[in-house]
């Protein structure tokens, strides 16, 4: 470390140094300025605490003042040039890795001076200015560079064409920081920037890394630019990048992987072959061992590579990724960024494949099994094997799961969010939900806590995990309610934020699935019928869908569960009916007709239908159009389930199905004529339940439905393209025909 050249009196007091620097900046003593700049630089280089201290005490404006006065000096001299170099270097140091420093530098007006100095004839000054600007461009606070202005693009190309690696590096950093839109990506590609960056891949380590990062930015999510990059005009660019995945430097390998991931995620056909995919996974897993920034970023890169891609998740599983990621977690004392990345990578890995979830949850089980196994030697082999599996599910994965649950209370918000997302993927396992794995206070208490006073993003992440966990097929849903979970979900179902509202109602819907009557009553008394009714008519179709599914799960069960929709003067039933009436108008609902076949008669057939419920997977938030379809079918199924009840229930459903102003207009017709088989299935089931022959009022209802054209429509559907619809139509026609064909 260089020695300080400060005077002997009070050499280490920042306040004194700043005072002297401030006085010198106003004066003409170049030597003093130089000496103080060097002293300051030596104090702050590599020392974040001191940087922040000097920034707080106002050192930056004095340094920028020296830079500006040297920049506007009438004539260049050695002293002026040294002042420019030293002040630029000090500014770079303040900006390196400290956003507060970048802000202070930009606020003091250093940026235009530094930019001018990049064109200075003195190479040392150019180098110092470029180095400082690179530091600034590492920060999000750096000003956006407008590529679409012709002179700016020319200046950028000029930077990239320089010999000096700090200058070319600056050009690359500017791109990485500022290129955001596809128009900018294309403009850079068209201007030859991509080609130039490709040529820099053969340069120094610094140039290579900066170019790789820029290339990844320019090609990201842009198939047109990617096709140019992998095409003949870019030479061997793709093969050079591929080759760099084997470079001796970890950061270069990581950046090369990120380029290939950008290509793979946007234009998979450009990067075919299992070989390269497996190679990418293996490299990234190996890079996780790097204890620095490279290791941190490798986890995020792996997450990006395998997200939503089952084939790649399978390859990662075969490459032992679950074990490797888990091994890193077990090391403990990882910093926040690393933890976040690993949880997100695990989340992607476990999002679709049960084998990944099982592997993660069963890790570290062997010791436990080894200890117990011999005790059970009395059983025959087949039984023992199955029993060990049972053990795996019941006890073994507490330890692995604890790594995730521990992170739910991590000090860093990003880690808590990533742990929730990971838990969401793990709890997609029906096998474990059935075993009641996640329904315990160790998991539920911190999750419910995250619903209170957390930022929206964290609330949504926690709700995602809760939505899955409360599906729980065991009889312990009351544990969640006892933890205060239902209360919090109800609170969030009233949120002004529609995403929070949607996720909260979704979770309530899943909590209501197959829950006992006592819990149902508790949830409903917390939620209230009026709030539920308002959610059924929520402005967002996706919220409506979940609210209707919630009602459906509410009435699922014994016949008297249908009473819930009749409470408060049929508040919920009217809400469902109104929603269907409003949303199923022909112009909204009728998207086309089903494939109609010739009419055919089927023999009479009885069929009993009892109410059913459902739980919803978290996987994809439905688009609004799809949400509308789901919402309407769920609404119809709610009525269908109520219609499976007693006479009162059936008549109540009839009154909802018929237009209030006309006794012959029935919304079932629109459903039955819809091109989407989901509508048709729901509607036919409702007809089946309403006309079940042994119910006393079935004859009258069949007559009313016939008058509304339902029988005619059903006869047109006997050869429906959907087997499910076809079979239900057969039942419905059989039941209606059992009362006669209406001709007499």
């Amino acid at each position, binding site marked *: 470390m260089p020695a300080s050249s400060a005077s002997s009196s009070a050499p280490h007091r920042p306040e004194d140094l700043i005072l002297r620097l401030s006085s010198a900046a106003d004066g003409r003593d170049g030597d003093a300025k130089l000496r103080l700049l060097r002293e300051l630089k030596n104090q702050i280089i590599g020392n974040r605490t001191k940087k922040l201290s000097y920034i707080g005490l106002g050192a930056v404006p004095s340094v920028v003042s020296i830079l500006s006065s040297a920049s506007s000096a009438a004539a260049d001299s050695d002293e002026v040039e040294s002042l420019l170099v030293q002040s630029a270097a000090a500014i770079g140091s303040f900006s390196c890795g400290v956003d507060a420093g970048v802000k202070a530098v930009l606020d003091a007006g250093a940026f235009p001076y530094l930019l001018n100095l990049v064109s200075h004839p003195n190479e040392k000054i150019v180098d110092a200015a470029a180095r400082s600007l690179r530091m600034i461009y590492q920060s999000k606070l750096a000003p956006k560079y407008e590529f679409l202005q012709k002179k700016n693009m020319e200046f950028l190309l000029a930077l990239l064409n320089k010999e000096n690696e700090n200058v070319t590096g600056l050009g690359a950093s500017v791109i990485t920081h500022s290129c955001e839109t596809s128009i900018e990506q294309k403009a850079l590609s068209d201007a030859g920037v991509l080609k130039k960056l490709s040529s820099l891949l053969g340069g120094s380590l610094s140039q290579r890394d900066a170019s790789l990062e820029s290339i990844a930015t320019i090609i990201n999510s842009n198939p047109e630019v990617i096709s140019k990059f992998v095409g003949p005009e870019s030479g061997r660019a793709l093969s050079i990048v591929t080759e760099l995945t084997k470079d001796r430097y970890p950061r270069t390998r990581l950046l090369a992987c990120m380029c290939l991931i950008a290509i793979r995620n946007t234009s998979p056909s450009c990067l075919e072959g299992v070989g390269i995919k497996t190679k990418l996974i293996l490299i990234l897993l190996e890079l996780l061992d790097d204890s620095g920034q490279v290791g941190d970023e490798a986890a995020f890169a792996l997450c990006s590579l395998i997200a939503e891609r089952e084939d790649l998740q399978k390859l990662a599983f075969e490459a032992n990724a679950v074990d490797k990621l888990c091994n890193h977690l077990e090391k403990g004392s990882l910093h926040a960024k690393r933890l976040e990345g690993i949880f997100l990578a695990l989340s992607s890995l476990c999002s679709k494949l049960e084998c990944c979830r099982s592997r993660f949850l069963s890790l570290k089980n062997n010791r436990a099994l080894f200890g117990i196994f011999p005790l*059970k030697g009395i*059983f*025959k*082999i*087949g*039984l*023992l*094997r*199955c*029993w060990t*599996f*049972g053990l795996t*599910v*019941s006890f073994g994965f507490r330890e692995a799961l604890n790594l995730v649950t521990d992170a739910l209370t991590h000090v860093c918000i990003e880690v808590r969010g990533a742990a929730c997302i990971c838990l969401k993927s793990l709890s997609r396992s*029906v*096998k474990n*939900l*059935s*075993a009641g794995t996640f329904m315990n206070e160790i998991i539920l208490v911190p999750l419910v806590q995250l619903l209170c006073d957390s930022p929206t993003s964290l609330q949504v992440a926690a709700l995602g995990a809760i939505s899955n966990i409360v599906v729980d*097929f*065991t009889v312990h849903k009351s544990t969640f309610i006892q933890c205060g979970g239902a209360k919090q979900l109800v609170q969030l179902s009233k949120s002004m934020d529609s995403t929070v509202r949607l996720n909260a109602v979704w979770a309530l819907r899943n909590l209501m*699935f*197959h829950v006992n009557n006592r819990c149902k009553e508790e949830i409903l008394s917390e939620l209230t019928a009026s709030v539920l009714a308002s959610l059924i008519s929520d402005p967002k179709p996706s919220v409506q869908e979940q609210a209707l599914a919630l009602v459906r799960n509410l009435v*699922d069960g014994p016949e008297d569960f249908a009473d819930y929709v009749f409470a408060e003067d049929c508040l919920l039933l009217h809400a469902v009916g109104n929603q269907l009436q409003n949303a199923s108008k022909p112009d909204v609902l009728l998207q086309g007709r089903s494939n109609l076949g010739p009419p055919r008669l089927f023999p009479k057939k009885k*069929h*009993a*239908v*009892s*109410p*059913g*419920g*459902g*739980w*919803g997977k978290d996987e994809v938030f439905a688009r609004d159009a799809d949400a509308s*379809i*789901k919402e309407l*079918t*769920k609404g119809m*199924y709610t009525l*269908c*389930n109520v219609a*499976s009840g007693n006479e009162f229930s059936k008549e109540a459903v009839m009154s909802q199905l018929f237009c209030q102003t006309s006794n012959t207009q029935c919304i079932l017709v629109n459903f039955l004529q819809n091109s989407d*088989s*989901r509508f048709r*299935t*729901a509607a036919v*089931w409702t007809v089946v339940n309403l006309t079940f022959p042994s119910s006393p009022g079935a004859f009258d209802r069949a007559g009313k439905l016939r008058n509304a054209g339902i029988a005619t429509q059903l006869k047109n559907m006997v050869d429906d393209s*959907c*087997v*499910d619809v076809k*079979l*239900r139509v*057969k039942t419905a026609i059989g039941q209606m025909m059992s009362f006669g064909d209406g001709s007499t």
Partner: protein
Amino acid sequence: MPVRVVETSAAPSQAPGANVGHASPQACTLLGVGQAFSGTQNVSSPQKDEAWRVNVRIQGCDLDHGYLCGTMEALNVPMADTPVVTFWEGEIVDTKNHTFFTNKWKATSEVDIEHWTKFPSFAPLLSQVKVDGGKSLDLSSYHYIFMRWKEQYFVNVGTDCGLTIAGFYYACFSCSDGSINGFYYDPNSSSDE
């Protein structure tokens, strides 16, 4: 250990899933998540014949992957104090993810055909299944869904319940009436099971 599970009540549970592959069976509302079935399981041995009451509930269904899972509850098992609940996972024979040939669980193709032919609805498929396991069949519009159900673990009892879950079930679901018939196969079962 032959098993028969007859549906007595069923209901549409969820809107059927979209994006069903061309070779997959179409979604059937009677085989959706949440559906419950009840019936009997006939347990034969040289000493006696028993009929256990059985409830089945579907808990998960992923037609794209030919996957189904749920629980099976045996109510009046003589050697158990409480109903015995097991969790099972099923393979749907969709000729995309799974064929009629099991290729595991110690079931040869001869064993497979022997069991599948016990279902009358399998008869029209037999000749082709003998050739390629049914790989070239299009079952997407067939009114029956063939499955294999493998119990994975006991949910509520320990191994001292005296039951084995080492075998698996050949099952056939009727989309028309929602009934399920199944036959258990376990080459290692002792004679008293």
